[in-house]
C-alpha cells in the first residue's frame, strides 16, 4: 500500500511520513498539487492525503485532476485540513474529496480512515479487473460470432437461385436464429428445397445448419429421394445435436417435368397447395417428428405424393408467421394466412411479410418470418457440355469359365472399367444394355441351351429364371469370351461376345425368327447399337456402338 502525502509544510510531511511508515505503509511526498500530479503519473499510489492550502496548485484545484488521473478505479483523496467551517467541508467534497483528516493528526483516526479507504480501493480494483475480463470475453464472443456468422452465411448462401421455381423470404438475421432455406437441382433436373427451423436461437441453433446443408446439397447432387435425404439428415442431426434440440423441416422435390411433388414433412406448420388466385387446393399436414429426435430404427420415411399442374403453387412457412402477435396479443394464425394467400393473384412472399408486419403494427419481431412459395413448373432443359473423348485406343478381352459365369457379374464389372475412360461414362447405361443382352443371350441360349419360348407362357417369366439358375448351377464345361475395342478415330466401341455353345439358331436363321426369339432384347439392341452381326453358327455376335 503506497500513500502520497501532499503538503507544503515540511513538518507536517515528516510527521505524517513517520506515522504511516510506522504502520508499514510506503510513503511518497509532494509539496504542492502540481508535484502530486507528477508523482501520480510515475508511481502507483493507493491513497492521497491532500493539504488544502498550498502554493502553485492548491488542494481544491488538484483534487479533481487527481480523480481524473485515477480513471475508473477508486483512488481515495483525503483532505488534510485545519479548517473547521461547513463551507470548506462542502467545497472539499464538491471537488472530489472522499474524506477529511484534521490537524493535529490523531493516530487512531488516521489509521482507521486509511484502512477503510484501502478496503474500498481494493474492492474497486477487483471490480475493475473483473470488468476488464468481462469486456475481453464479450469482445471475444462478439468476434467469434462474427466469424461464425461469416462462415454460415457463406456456407448457406445460395450459390444458385431459382427465380422461376421459387420465391422465398428469410429474416435478415435468421441464419443465426435457426431458420434455413436451401434449394438445389439434381442432375436429372428435379428441383429440391428444404425449409428448416432449429429449436432455440443463436449460435447453438445455427450449428446444426452447417452439416445439414452439406448433406442436403450432396444428396441432391446425387439425385436421391426426399425420404433418403430426410433419413440422412435425421441421422446427422440425431448424432450431433444435444437431446433437447431438433430441426422441424419440410423437404420437397418437384420432378423435372414439374408434374409431381414428393414431400417429407416433419414438425413444420401445414403447407398449402394453392392455385394462381391463391385458392386453397390442398392442405399438407406434417406427418413426422422433427429431424434429430428419432434414432435410425424409429425414423419414418413416408412421403406425401402429389400430382400437380403448372399453375399450382406450394406454400411453406415456419411457425414465425402464424405465431406473430398483434399489439393486442392476438396471433396471426392459419386462417388469416389462408385469407392473405387468396388476397392477391400470384402473391409474393414479400406481400405476405408486409401483411404480417402490418398485423403486428411493426412491433418488435418475435420469431423468424420464413416463407417460401414453389411454382410447380418444369425444369428448363439441361444444356449439355460438349463431351470430351479419350484419344487413346485400347482393346482387351476376358475369357470366362463356368465357375466365373456362376459367381460373378462380368458385365457390370466390365462396364465399370469402361466407364473410367473419358467420354464413356455418359454412355454406360446403353453399353450395359448392349453387353448384358448379348452376354445373357450367349449364356442362356448358347451355353445353357434354354429356350426363351418359356418366357411367353403363363408365369413363364419367373419359371425361366428358375430354370436358368438350376442349369447354371450344374454347368461345368463352358467358355464365353468378351472382347472390347475402342477406336478414338471413329469414336466407336467394338464388342464381340463368343460362346462355346452350339450356336443358338444355326438351323433357322431368318431375321424374323431371330426377332421373335430374342424379342424385345434384340429390337432394343438394333436401336441402340450402330450395327449388330451374328456369325453363321450363331455363337458369336459383333456389335458396334458409336459414342456420337
Amino acid at each position, binding site marked *: 500500500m503506497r500513500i502520497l502525502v501532499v503538503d507544503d509544510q515540511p513538518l507536517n510531511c515528516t510527521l505524517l511520513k513517520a506515522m504511516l511508515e510506522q504502520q508499514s505503509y510506503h510513503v511518497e511526498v509532494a509539496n504542492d498539487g502540481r508535484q502530486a500530479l507528477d508523482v501520480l503519473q510515475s508511481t502507483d499510489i493507493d491513497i492521497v492525503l491532500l493539504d488544502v492550502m498550498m502554493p502553485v496548485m492548491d488542494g481544491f484545484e488538484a483534487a479533481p485532476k487527481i480523480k481524473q488521473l485515477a480513471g475508473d478505479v477508486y483512488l481515495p483523496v483525503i483532505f488534510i485540513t485545519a479548517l473547521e467551517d461547513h463551507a470548506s467541508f462542502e467545497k472539499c467534497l464538491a471537488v472530489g474529496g472522499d474524506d477529511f483528516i484534521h490537524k493535529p493528526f490523531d493516530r487512531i483516526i488516521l489509521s482507521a480512515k486509511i484502512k477503510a479507504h484501502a478496503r474500498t480501493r481494493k474492492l474497486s480494483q477487483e471490480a475493475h479487473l473483473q470488468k476488464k475480463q468481462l469486456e475481453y470475453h464479450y469482445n471475444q464472443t462478439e468476434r467469434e460470432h462474427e466469424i461464425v456468422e461469416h462462415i454460415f452465411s457463406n456456407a448457406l448462401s445460395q450459390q444458385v437461385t431459382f427465380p422461376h421455381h421459387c420465391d422465398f423470404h428469410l429474416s435478415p438475421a435468421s441464419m443465426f436464429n435457426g431458420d434455413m432455406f436451401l434449394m438445389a437441382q439434381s442432375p436429372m433436373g428435379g428441383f429440391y428445397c428444404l425449409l428448416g427451423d432449429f429449436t432455440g436461437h443463436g449460435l447453438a441453433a445455427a450449428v446444426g445448419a452447417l452439416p445439414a446443408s452439406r448433406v442436403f446439397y450432396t444428396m441432391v447432387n446425387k*439425385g436421391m429421394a426426399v425420404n433418403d435425404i430426410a433419413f440422412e439428415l435425421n441421422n446427422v442431426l440425431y448424432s450431433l445435436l444435444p437431446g433437447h434440440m431438433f430441426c422441424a423441416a419440410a423437404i420437397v422435390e418437384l420432378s423435372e*417435368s414439374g*408434374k409431381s411433388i414428393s414431400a417429407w414433412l416433419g414438425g413444420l406448420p401445414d403447407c398449402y397447395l394453392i392455385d394462381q388466385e391463391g385458392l386453397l387446393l390442398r392442405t399438407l399436414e406434417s406427418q413426422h417428428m422433427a429431424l434429430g429426435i428419432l434414432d435410425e430404427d424409429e425414423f419414418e420415411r413416408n412421403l406425401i405424393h402429389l400430382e400437380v399442374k403448372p399453375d399450382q403453387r406450394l406454400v411453406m412457412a415456419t411457425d414465425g408467421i402464424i405465431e406473430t402477435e398483434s399489439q393486442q396479443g392476438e396471433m396471426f394464425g392459419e386462417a388469416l394466412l389462408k385469407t392473405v394467400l387468396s388476397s392477391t393473384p400470384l402473391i409474393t412472399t414479400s406481400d405476405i411479410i408486409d401483411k404480417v408486419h402490418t398485423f403486428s403494427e411493426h412491433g418488435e419481431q418475435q420469431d423468424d418470418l420464413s416463407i417460401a412459395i414453389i411454382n410447380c413448373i418444369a425444369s428448363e432443359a439441361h444444356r449439355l457440355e460438349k463431351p470430351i473423348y479419350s484419344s487413346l485406343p485400347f482393346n482387351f478381352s476376358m475369357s470366362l469359365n463356368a465357375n466365373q459365369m456362376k459367381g460373378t457379374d462380368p458385365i457390370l464389372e466390365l462396364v465399370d472399367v469402361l466407364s473410367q475412360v473419358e467420354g464413356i461414362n455418359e454412355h454406360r*447405361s446403353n453399353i450395359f444394355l448392349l453387353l448384358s443382352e448379348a452376354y445373357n443371350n450367349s449364356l442362356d441360349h448358347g451355353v445353357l441351351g434354354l429356350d426363351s419360348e418359356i418366357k411367353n407362357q403363363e408365369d413363364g417369366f419367373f419359371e425361366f429364371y428358375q430354370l436358368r439358375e438350376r442349369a447354371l448351377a450344374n454347368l461345368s464345361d463352358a467358355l464365353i469370351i468378351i472382347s472390347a475395342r475402342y477406336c478414338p478415330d471413329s469414336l466407336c466401341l467394338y464388342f464381340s461376345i463368343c460362346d462355346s455353345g452350339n450356336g443358338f439358331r444355326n438351323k433357322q436363321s431368318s431375321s424374323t425368327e431371330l426377332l421373335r426369339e430374342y424379342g424385345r432384347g434384340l429390337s432394343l439392341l438394333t436401336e441402340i447399337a450402330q450395327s449388330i452381326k451374328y456369325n453363321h453358327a450363331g455363337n458369336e455376335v459383333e456389335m458396334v456402338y458409336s459414342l456420337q
Partner: protein
Amino acid sequence: MSLSKNASADGKTLTIQIRGKFDFNLVQSFRQAYAEVGEQTEKVVIDLRETDYMDSSALGMLLNMKKTLGDSIGSIHISNCRPQLKKILQISRFDKKFDID
C-alpha cells in the same frame, strides 16, 4: 443393387425404388414388392433415380407387373429416369403403357 419400397403417408401410393442395376436378379424381390398392393393403393411409382443400368429382363418384369396389377390400380409411373434409361423405355414404347416422368 437393391430394391426398397415405401407406402406414402396416405397409403395411396406405393413407391418401389431400385438402386444400381435393374435386371433379372431382382425378379423375385420385385414381384414381392408389388404383391402386397392393397385396395387402397391407387398408384405405383417405380423410382429409377438411382438406377444406372437396366436390360430387357427389367422391361419384362415391368410388363409382368402391369399384367398382374391390371386395372386394380389407377396408374403405374416410372419416374426420375436418367436420360439414357428414358430413351430405352421410349424405344421399347413403354410410354404407351406407363406414365414416364
